[in-house]
C-alpha cells in the first residue's frame, strides 16, 4: 500500500499494487457481508426459534388490532380547588372504514336515525383519509340520549358503526373567566405541524386559547396503547396488552373565582376590565374582561351562526381586554411622575406650582387645559396627586423631559410586556423619541411631552400593566412577574406543587422615604379632604392608596365646551382607577378600566372598592374575607371540603 508518488502531476500508476490493494478491500467487504448476513440470521433465529411460541400464538389469535388510548385531559381549578374545566362523558357516532362494505349506503342508512349535515360528512371524510382503516372516525359527536337509544336498536344492521362514549371538555359556569381559561378545539393543520404525532395519536382536541393553550403540555398527558384481538366483524374479543394512558396534570390557577365573580358583577354590563394581583407574589387573583362569552360554545367546533354572532358584535366579546386592550392610562400614572420628580430632584416635597386651569410652554400661547377649568390654585406634589391636578404634571413633564420620563415609565412596566404566563399580551406604548421616529418618522415635539406626562396622547397601557405598576408602587420597587399558574398536580394522589413567585428585580431609589411620600399622596386620593376618590372609599375598613384616571377618547377643540350627555357613548372618556391595600402590608393591587365609562372617580373607583372589600373584609356577617384562600394546597384532601363549604 506504499504510495509511489506524492507529488501531483506525477501520474505513475502501479497496476499490480492497485490490484492488490483492491483485492484486500474486496476480501474485507466480503467478510463484512458475511457478518451483516450473520446478524440477520441471528435476528431471524431470535424471532423464529426463541420467540416462536409468542408469535405463533399472536398469529393464531389471527386478528390483532392496536388502539391508541387518549389520555384524560388535566383539570383546571382556581386557587381553592373550584373546578374551571373538566371532562364529561358524551356519546359520539364512529365509523371504522375497514369494517364497512358500502360507505355511502351506510351513511344514508344512518341518516334515518341520527341527524347530521354536509359539514359533518365533509369533516368526517377528511378525517378518514388521514386515519388508518382500522381506526374509528367520528361522524357526529354529542349525541342526545334519544339518538343513542334510537340507533342502538338498529345497530346490528350497520357493521363498523359504533356509538362510543368519550370525554368532552366542559367549563362549568366559567364564562366569567373565559378569556383566561380559553378553550380546546379540534386539532387543525397548523397544530399538526408542531405537535408530537405519537402522543396525539388518539387526541382529538388541543388547547386553542388562554390557559388551555399555554399549558397544553401539562394538561394533555401521555397516550396509551392497547393491543386487542378482534373477530371478523371488528368486535374486540379480548385485550392482549395494555399500556394505559397517563392523564394530564391538574392545573391550579391563581384566580379566586369568588373574587372573579365579584369583579365581574361590579363591572356589570360595561365594556372594560378588572385585574387584581397579589403584589408580593405576582399572583393574578382576578382577571375580568367584559363583555364575556360562553367558552363552552367552542367545544366540538363552534357553529357558524354562533361564531358569526361573536365575531361581528361591535363590543368584541372574544377580545381579552385585560391583556390586550390598550388604553391611555390617564392620571393613574401621576404617582410615578411624582416619584420621578422627587428622585431626580426636579421638584422637592415643598415645591409649589400655581395652577390657573391651564399651562402654556414658554413662548407658545397654546393652552394645555386642566380638567378643572377654574384651576386648583397653589399645589405641592402631594396635593397634585390627591386632586389630580394636570397643570402640576405638565410642569413636571416639561422639566423632566421625555427621555427621563420614558425611562421611569419603562421601569414601572409600561411599553413592554409584563411577562405574564398567557398570551397574547400587548405591550402598549410608552412613547419616546425613538418610538415616534420609528413609528411616524417624525421628531418629538415638546408639547407631546406634556400630554404624555398626564398619561394621554400616544401613551397606552393594558389593564394588566396598570395593576402591575400599582403593585410595583405597593411593594416599593420590588418587581415580580405576574402569573396565573398557581400549582401543578401531576396526579391526584400527589399534593399540588406550588409555583414559586419570580422576583424580576428591585427598582433602585436614592431616597427610600420618597416611596412613603408618594404612597401617602395616593392615600390622600381616597381619604383626603379633597381626594378624587374619597366618596367611593368612605368608611373603608382598611387603608387604601389609589389613583383615579379619566382618559380622553377624542380631543376637544381649544376652548370648546362639551356636554357629556350629547356625546355619543362610544366617544366618552374611559374611566380608570388603580389601588392597593392595605397600605402597611399590601395584599392586593387592582386596576379597573371602564370603556367610555365617564369619570374614574364616579365609575371606576366604586368597582375597585367592591373588589378590595371582598378580598380584605368580606361581607360582614355573610362571608369571611377571601384573602386566605389557597391555603388548602398544603393538604390536597381539603379541596373538596372547601368546595362544600362554599
Amino acid at each position: 500500500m506504499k504510495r509511489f508518488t506524492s507529488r501531483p502531476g506525477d501520474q505513475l500508476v502501479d497496476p499490480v499494487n492497485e490490484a492488490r490493494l483492491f483485492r484486500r478491500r474486496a476480501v474485507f467487504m466480503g467478510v463484512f457481508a458475511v457478518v451483516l448476513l450473520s446478524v440477520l440470521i441471528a435476528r431471524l433465529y431470535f424471532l423464529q426459534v426463541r420467540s416462536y411460541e409468542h408469535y405463533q400464538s399472536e398469529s393464531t389469535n389471527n386478528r390483532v388490532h392496536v388502539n391508541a388510548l387518549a389520555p384524560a385531559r388535566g383539570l383546571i381549578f382556581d386557587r381553592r380547588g373550584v373546578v374551571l374545566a373538566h371532562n364529561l362523558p358524551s356519546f359520539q357516532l364512529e365509523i371504522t372504514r375497514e369494517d364497512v362494505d358500502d360507505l355511502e349506503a351506510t351513511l344514508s342508512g344512518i341518516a334515518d336515525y341520527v341527524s347530521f349535515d354536509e359539514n359533518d360528512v365533509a369533516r368526517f371524510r377528511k378525517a378518514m383519509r388521514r386515519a388508518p382503516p382500522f381506526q374509528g372516525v367520528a361522524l357526529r359527536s354529542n349525541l342526545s340520549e334519544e339518538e343513542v337509544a334510537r340507533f342502538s336498536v338498529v345497530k346490528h344492521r350497520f357493521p363498523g358503526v359504533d356509538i362510543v362514549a368519550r370525554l368532552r371538555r366542559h367549563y362549568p359556569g366559567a364564562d366569567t373567566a373565559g378569556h383566561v381559561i380559553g378553550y380546546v378545539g379540534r386539532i387543525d393543520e397548523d397544530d399538526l405541524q408542531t405537535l408530537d404525532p405519537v402522543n396525539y395519536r388518539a387526541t382529538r382536541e388541543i388547547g386553542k386559547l388562554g390557559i388551555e393553550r399555554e399549558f397544553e403540555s401539562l394538561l394533555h398527558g401521555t397516550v396509551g396503547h392497547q393491543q386487542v384481538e378482534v373477530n371478523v366483524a371488528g368486535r374486540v374479543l379480548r385485550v392482549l396488552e395494555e399500556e394505559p394512558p397517563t392523564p394530564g396534570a391538574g392545573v391550579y390557577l391563581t384566580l379566586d373565582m369568588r373574587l372573579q365573580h365579584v369583579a365581574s358583577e361590579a363591572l356589570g354590563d360595561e365594556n372594560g376590565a378588572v385585574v387584581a394581583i397579589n403584589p408580593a407574589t405576582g399572583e393574578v387573583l382576578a382577571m375580568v374582561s367584559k363583555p364575556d362569552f360562553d367558552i363552552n360554545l367552542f367545544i366540538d367546533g363552534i357553529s357558524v351562526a354562533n361564531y358569526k354572532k361573536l365575531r361581528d358584535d361591535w363590543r368584541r366579546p372574544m377580545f381579552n381586554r385585560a391583556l390586550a386592550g390598550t388604553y391611555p392610562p390617564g392620571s393613574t400614572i401621576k404617582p410615578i411622575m411624582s416619584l420621578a420628580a422627587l428622585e431626580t430632584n426636579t421638584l422637592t416635597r415643598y415645591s409649589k406650582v400655581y395652577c390657573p386651569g391651564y399651562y402654556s410652554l414658554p413662548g407658545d400661547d397654546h393652552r394645555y387645559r386642566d380638567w378643572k377649568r377654574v384651576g386648583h390654585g397653589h399645589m405641592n406634589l402631594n396635593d397634585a396627586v390627591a386632586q389630580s391636578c394636570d397643570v402640576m404634571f405638565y410642569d413636571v413633564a416639561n422639566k423632566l423631559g421625555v427621555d427621563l420620563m420614558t425611562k421611569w415609565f419603562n421601569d414601572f412596566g409600561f411599553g413592554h410586556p409584563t411577562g405574564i404566563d398567557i398570551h397574547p399580551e400587548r405591550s402598549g406604548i410608552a412613547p419616546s423619541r425613538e418610538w415616534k421616529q420609528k413609528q411616524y418618522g417624525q421628531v418629538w415635539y415638546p408639547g407631546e411631552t406634556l400630554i404624555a406626562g398626564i398619561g394621554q396622547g400616544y401613551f397606552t397601557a393594558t389593564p394588566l400593566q396598570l395593576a402591575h405598576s400599582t403593585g410595583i408602587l405597593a411593594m416599593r420597587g420590588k418587581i415580580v412577574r405576574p402569573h396565573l399558574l398557581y400549582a401543578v398536580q401531576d396526579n391526584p394522589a400527589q399534593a399540588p406543587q406550588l409555583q414559586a413567585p419570580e422576583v424580576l428585580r428591585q427598582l433602585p431609589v436614592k431616597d427610600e422615604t420618597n416611596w412613603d411620600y408618594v404612597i401617602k399622596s395616593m392615600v390622600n386620593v381616597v381619604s383626603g379632604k379633597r381626594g378624587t376618590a374619597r366618596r367611593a372609599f368612605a368608611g373603608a375598613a382598611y387603608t387604601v392608596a389609589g389613583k383615579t384616571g379619566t382618559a380622553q377618547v377624542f380631543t376637544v377643540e381649544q376652548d370648546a365646551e362639551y356636554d357629556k350627555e350629547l356625546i355619543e357613548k362610544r366617544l366618552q372618556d374611559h374611566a380608570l382607577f388603580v389601588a392597593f391595600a392595605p397600605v402597611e402590608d399590601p395584599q392586593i393591587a387592582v386596576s379597573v378600566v371602564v370603556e367610555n365609562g365617564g369619570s374614574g372617580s364616579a365609575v371606576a373607583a366604586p368597582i375597585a372598592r367592591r373588589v378590595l372589600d371582598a378580598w380584605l373584609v368580606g361581607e360582614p356577617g355573610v362571608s369571611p374575607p377571601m384573602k386566605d384562600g389557597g391555603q388548602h394546597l398544603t393538604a390536597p384532601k381539603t379541596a373538596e371540603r372547601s368546595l362544600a363549604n362554599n
Partner: protein
Amino acid sequence: MPTTEHGAMGQQQTPGLFVLLSRFLRLDIPLLTGLLLLCGLSLVVLYSASGQDVGAVQRQTVRFALAFGVMLVLAHVPPTALQRSSVFFYAIGMAMLVAVLLVGDVGKGAQRWLDLGFMRFQPSELMKVAVPMMVAWYVSQEPLPPRFGRLLVALGIVALPAALIMQQPDLGTALLVAGAGLAVVFMAGMQWRYILGALALAAVAAPLLWANMHSYQQQRVLTFLNPEADPLGAGYHIIQSKIAVGSGGLFGKGWLNGTQSHLDFLPERHTDFIFAVFGEEFGLFGAMALLGLYLFVIIRGLWLAADSQGTYGRLVSAAMVVTFLVYLFVNVGMVTGLLPVVGVPLPLVSYGGTSLVTLMIGFGIIMSAHSHRRLLS
C-alpha cells in the same frame, strides 16, 4: 490474476458451445445463475403474497425480461465508454434532482418524480449509478489510494446529491446513494486512519445536532429509531411483520399457507415487506437459504470486480455489489424490526420495476468490466 489467465488458456482447447455463447454475450454464468434463481424465487413468493394473482406475476415477469435485457446491453458497453460519460451522467442527475425539488410531482407525500411528458422518472434512481461512476472517475485520475484532498472532494461529490435526495424526503434512497459513493472511496483504499477519524467525527457531531433540534423533531427521530413506540404508525407494520416472520418457525407454514399475510394484516406485503411473507411461509431454513443465495451473488460480484482490469471498472463494480448488500441488509433488517422503517425493497424479489432496473444496470456493469479485460490489456 496471472493464474486465472493461465487457467483460461488451459481450457482454450475445448471451449463448449455454452461457454462460447456466454463469452459472446459477455455474461458470467455463475452470477447469471444466481440472479435467475433469485428472480424465480421472487415470482414464487409474489404469487403467494399477491393473493395468488397471476396478473401480478405476469407483470413482474415482463419486468424481469426487460431488466435482463438492460443488463445484457450494459454488459456490452465497454468500461472506458462509461468512464468518459461519468461526468455527463452526474451533471444530468444533479440538474434533475434540483428540478425535482422545484417542479417535481408529489407522490405518497414525497417529491420524487419528474414528469418528462411521456413518462415519470425518478432522478434519485439514476444517482444510485451515476454517483459511484462519478466518484470512481474522479479518484481514478491519480494513483490509488487517493490523497486527503481528493478524498474530501469525493465526499462532497457523494454528499451533495444525498442531501438533495434527503430533501424530497427519501431517506432510503439517500442512504443507498451515499452507500454506493462511499463504497467507491473505501474500495479505492481510503486509509484506515481517515475512516476511523470520520467515524469519530460523526460520533461527536451527532449529540450536537441532537441538542439543536426542537423537542418535536427529537420526538420524530425517536419514533423513527424506535418504531414500536408508535404502534399505530410505523410500529403497526413492524408488529405485524414480526408476527408473520416469528410465526414461521423453523420450517415455515408452507407456500400459500401464510395466515398473517393472507389476512390483510401485513402492509406492503408484496413490495417492501415481501421478506415477511417469505419468512412466514418458508421458516428459518428457507430464509437462510435465501440469504445464502444472496451471499453467493455478493461474493461472486466482488470476485468478478477484483478480477477485472482497470481501476475505474473495478471500483464501479464493487460499488454496485455494495449497493446490493445495503439493499438487502436494510430491507431484511427493517422487516425483522432490527432497523427503522425506510422504503427500501428486497433486491430482485420485491414487486416493482424501478429498483430492479437499477440493480440490473449494476450487474451489467460488473459483467462488462470483467468481460472487457482482455481488450484493455
